[in-house]
């Protein structure tokens, strides 16, 4: 048997290589450096690695070749495993920016008096002597783990075949399972979050895998392009195809937290260390939506009519249940988690607004473009909001209960103001990024004829406004009870405050002049089949 050496497109998959390489370097650093130096080195490695990858992404993005009559740009690399096209590059950039903000939050050490928010010794039992002795330590392994997760997030939306998608899904998930369980405070909750996330994640990836097997059985290949060809040509065995598609969808919808696969979201978001929550709420969502878009548009675009109705129902349920359950929450992190569920619904509204290029008016916003833009707006707001949650503390660490937040606006107007701004953006008030994002996804869904979904979307955005505004009122107008303990803002280092500033700036700029980013998303073009 003749073996032909595969030719890898190193220039195009460069960001991937950098991220994985830096992660491995981080492991080596962890092994050989003395404890005192590890933190600085690891943070520097991760930040520099992500920056280099980001620069690489930009360079790759500017140099992509045009293919398919100018509708798309890019190439299929890695012998078919990786598709580096416009949308991939756009999503890579988003993931890398979100990860940079995540690294900054990970590295914050001023809030816990000189140590990070991660457990000093995860193996030590909570409340034991060993744990107390490890008070002053940090787990610096979190940075390589974060980098591996980022690598998975980069690979996930770029997958050229289902197997890559599955492996990438696991690469991004495993580190997150671990990171969720490493909180320094409230460790029982943190470990419980890790267990729940892990068991449910493994369960749902089992479904994804079975779907992959069935689709492979249908198409005889796991390439998305080959699946697309099979879907177009073959009409037999459609039952198996649909079951396979459904199971694949389950795996992805679980990752994005769509109803009825959302149950893990609030528990994990609440239990995980807040920096991890911030990172994964943005990063996972971006990557998983990228993969969902690719799977649905590339692999099953020709079979659009079969999955659109299901997505209608899921989008409607997700928006309604996310918003309704957020109304009754009394914990900030849980409220943000349910609002993340509602945002998934809005994003799905954009996803189901897909139309064939022939049906689109000239220059109309495509659903791909709308969803990618929404992801950008959502990421800035959610990372910023969780970063602020990590600042608001009382004697026992982060104070996430609502009553602790009463009157925060009077004690720290700037922080409360920034939080209110993020909430307003999530609520979709004009002049914030969230408004333009909502406008974009609603418009594409509307033009695809999904007006019932849009009506529900607007209705649930009213519930959403209700709880966002209620929280703003809580911060600015409510007076805490006389003898109740209230939270105050701990001054962070430049890392967290910088992250918040970037979030505010991004939200503001994308609200005032969203044009350039929308144009960028438009220039990204279509997926390569």
């Amino acid at each position, binding site marked *: 048997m003749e073996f032909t050496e595969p030719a890898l497109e190193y220039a195009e998959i460069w960001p991937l290589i950098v991220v994985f390489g830096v992660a491995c370097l981080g492991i080596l650093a962890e092994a050989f450096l003395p404890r005192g130096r590890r933190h600085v080195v690891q943070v520097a490695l991760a930040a520099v690695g992500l920056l280099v990858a980001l620069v690489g992404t930009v360079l790759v993005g500017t140099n992509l070749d045009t293919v398919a009559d100018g509708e798309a740009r890019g190439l299929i690399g890695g012998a078919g495993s990786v598709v580096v096209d416009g949308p991939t590059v756009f999503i890579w950039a988003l993931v890398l920016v979100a990860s940079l903000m995540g690294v900054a939050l990970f590295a914050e050490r001023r809030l816990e008096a000189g140590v990070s928010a991660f457990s000093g010794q995860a193996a030590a039992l909570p409340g034991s002597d060993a744990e107390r002795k490890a008070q002053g330590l940090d787990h610096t392994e979190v940075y390589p783990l974060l980098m591996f997760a980022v690598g998975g997030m980069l690979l996930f939306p770029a997958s050229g075949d289902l197997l890559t998608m599955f492996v990438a899904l696991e690469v991004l998930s495993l580190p997150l399972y671990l990171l969720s369980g490493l909180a320094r405070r409230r460790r029982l909750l943190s470990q419980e979050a890790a267990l729940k996330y892990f068991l449910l994640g493994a369960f749902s990836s089992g479904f994804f895998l079975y779907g992959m097997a069935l689709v492979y059985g249908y198409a005889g290949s796991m390439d998305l392009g080959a699946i697309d060809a099979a879907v177009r040509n073959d009409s037999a065995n459609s039952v198996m195809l649909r079951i396979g598609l459904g199971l694949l969808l389950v795996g992805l919808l679980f990752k994005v937290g769509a109803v009825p696969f959302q*149950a893990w979201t609030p528990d994990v978001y609440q239990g995980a260390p807040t920096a991890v929550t911030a990172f994964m709420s943005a990063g996972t969502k971006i990557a998983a939506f990228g993969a969902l878009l690719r799977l649905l548009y590339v692999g099953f675009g020709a079979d659009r009519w079969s999955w659109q109705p*299901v997505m209608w129902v899921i989008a409607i349920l997700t928006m309604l249940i996310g918003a309704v359950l957020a109304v009754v929450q009394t914990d900030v992190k849980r409220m943000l988690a349910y609002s993340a569920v509602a945002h998934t619904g809005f994003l799905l509204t954009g996803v189901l607004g897909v139309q064939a290029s022939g049906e689109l008016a000239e220059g109309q916003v495509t659903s791909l473009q709308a969803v990618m833009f929404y992801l950008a707006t959502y990421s800035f707001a959610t990372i910023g909001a969780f970063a602020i949650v990590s600042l608001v503390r009382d004697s026992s660490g982060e104070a996430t209960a609502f009553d602790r937040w009463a009157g925060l606006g009077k004690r720290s107007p700037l922080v409360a103001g920034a939080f209110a701004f993020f909430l307003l953006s999530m609520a979709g008030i004009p002049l914030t990024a969230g408004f333009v994002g909502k406008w974009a996804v609603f418009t594409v869904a509307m033009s695809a004829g999904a007006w019932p979904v849009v009506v529900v979307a607007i209705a649930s955005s009213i519930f959403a406004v209700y709880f966002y505004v209620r929280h703003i009122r809580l911060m600015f107008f409510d007076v805490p009870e006389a003898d109740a303990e209230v939270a105050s803002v701990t001054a962070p280092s430049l890392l967290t405050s910088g992250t918040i500033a970037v979030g505010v700036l991004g939200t503001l700029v994308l609200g005032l002049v969203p044009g350039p980013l929308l144009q960028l998303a438009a220039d990204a073009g279509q997926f390569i089949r």
Partner: protein
Amino acid sequence: MFLYTEGGHSIPVVDPISAADAGGVFPLLWLVIALPLLGAVVLLLGGRRTDAWGHLLGTATAVGSFVLSTLLLIAMMGREEGDRSVTQHLWDWVSVGGYEIGMDLLVDPLSILFLMLITGVGSLIHVYSIGYMEHDPRRRRFFAYLNLFVAAMLMLVLAENYLGVFLGWEGVGLASYLLIGFWQHKPSAAAAAKKAFVINRVGDIGMSLAIAMFFVTFGSASFTVISANASGAGEGTMTAIGLLLLLGAAGKSAQVPLQAWLLDAMEGPTPVSALIHAATMVTAGVYLVVRSNFVFEAAPAAQTAVVVVATVTLLWGAVIGCAKDDIKKALAGSTMSQIGYMMLAAGLGVYGYAYAIFHLITHGFFKANMFLGAGSVMHGMNDDVDMRHYGALRKLMPVTFLTFAMGYLAIIGFPLFSGFWSKDKIIETALVESPVFGICALIGAGVTGFYMTRVMLMTFFGEKRWQDGVHPHESPSVMTFPLIVLAALSVLGGVLYLGGWIKDWLVPVVGKAPEHELPFPAIVFSLITVAVVAVGVAIAWLSVGRRPIPSTAPTDVSFVTRAARNDLYGDAIHDTLVVEPGKALTRGLVSADRSLVDGLFTGGASLVQGLGQGLRRAQNGFVRSYALSILAGVVIVLAALLVVNL
């Protein structure tokens, strides 16, 4: 300039020229918004450092905007009729592919009138607030919010596209929320603020859907583009858009069925009620309908809906005005009713647009005047709002009394006062165009006469019924000065109609109405209206002015007993024929307002709460239950995929 003519009238096309070309003062258009916005930003970010001079800065920016608006008005008057629409492109807001949404401003004969009203009345209210809020420790914040409101309201009327309008729309909603809830220590104020916000969001559904439909239909939200292509869209589409816009307008302008928030909004400081809930924000709905004339002209069914909603509201509000003992709530009911008149006129199409705006402006003058007057009374009465505790104040508060009286005469339509001209034209047009609604409007005018006279009599005449320890006194001159100015405007507002000026002025925006044949001379309509109003006033005089007013609301039985016992024969008739049914109707409407409409919203909120409480039980913390929900989801997704594709 005009798109097409059909049935004798035309739909104008917005055809602006750019501010740079227009030259003169027009390139400074953006400053009109920027000034108060700057004020708000400085005051909010400046914090306590600005406490000492914050109110002065706030007032100065509002006055600055007013001066600029006046210059714009003068400049515009000096231009040709066709060149009076001027746009200014600030930056590309959303610019991608085929969508070009600029952050564009448009000043034309319609928006300049609003500019004058908002900045003019706004400046006066800023001045008044300096005195009114003097003892409030958070006065600086109040001025910041007021400035924010003015900026947002100006954005609303100056925007060149619906997205910009929506930006202002949400902005005034936010500012109004902040201001209603300004006295946050009162739970009622916080609840009222929340209610206003939530109900307004219902209206916003209409607004957002309408904007989405504009994009889908026209690929743009710009007035210029839509007005030029309005005739191309189907009537069904236009009707849908028209109804959605009406829903938005009803939310903002407190029209039935979204009116419930306005009465509660009176929890805010009185200058807020005067500025937001009388003169400016609540009229945004009228602005929206008039501005969208090209939509409504293409959608007759939507126009009819506007007329129906308006008529119901004008009666509803008037009857509520009769029932309230709280002076601000009585005035709020009256506001609702007067906006009903404006909407009615706007719904009458090209015949009515100009009158809608005309009444909007005169109403802005006299209602702001009366609200500030009410604030002045409250100021003197230790913030008591119950009219049953007033009485005989005319001697002690002469300036307030006189200015309030001017407003009173204007609102009931006393001949030659501003309200006479504006309301008279609306009733006349309605009677000619659709007699049924015209007669309703006429009845409304009579009821207006009744309840305003009642307010007047209970407050300034009769016995003094003050509570212990209350020493009424006239307000300081910083508060009475705006009253005097507004009173003068209430009296003289009618000059806008001198020679049909306002009608001609608005022609470039709303089109020119063909002359309609009046069955009688106009003076006959005026006489009828005045006569009906006189009846209302007389009834009020008989039922309120001639009898002592108990300082607590009389219960049903005692009222009837007393009426039977010591009243004149005529009074008894009037009681049985007018007052009792009237009271029953009033009670019915008020309770409907309380239970039905309120219930719908609070009920909706508690439904969501209950639903949430039920659903969250499913989140029971057991990972196996979550797995079960996933498996159930799998089964449902698979079944749905298979069923859909059978």
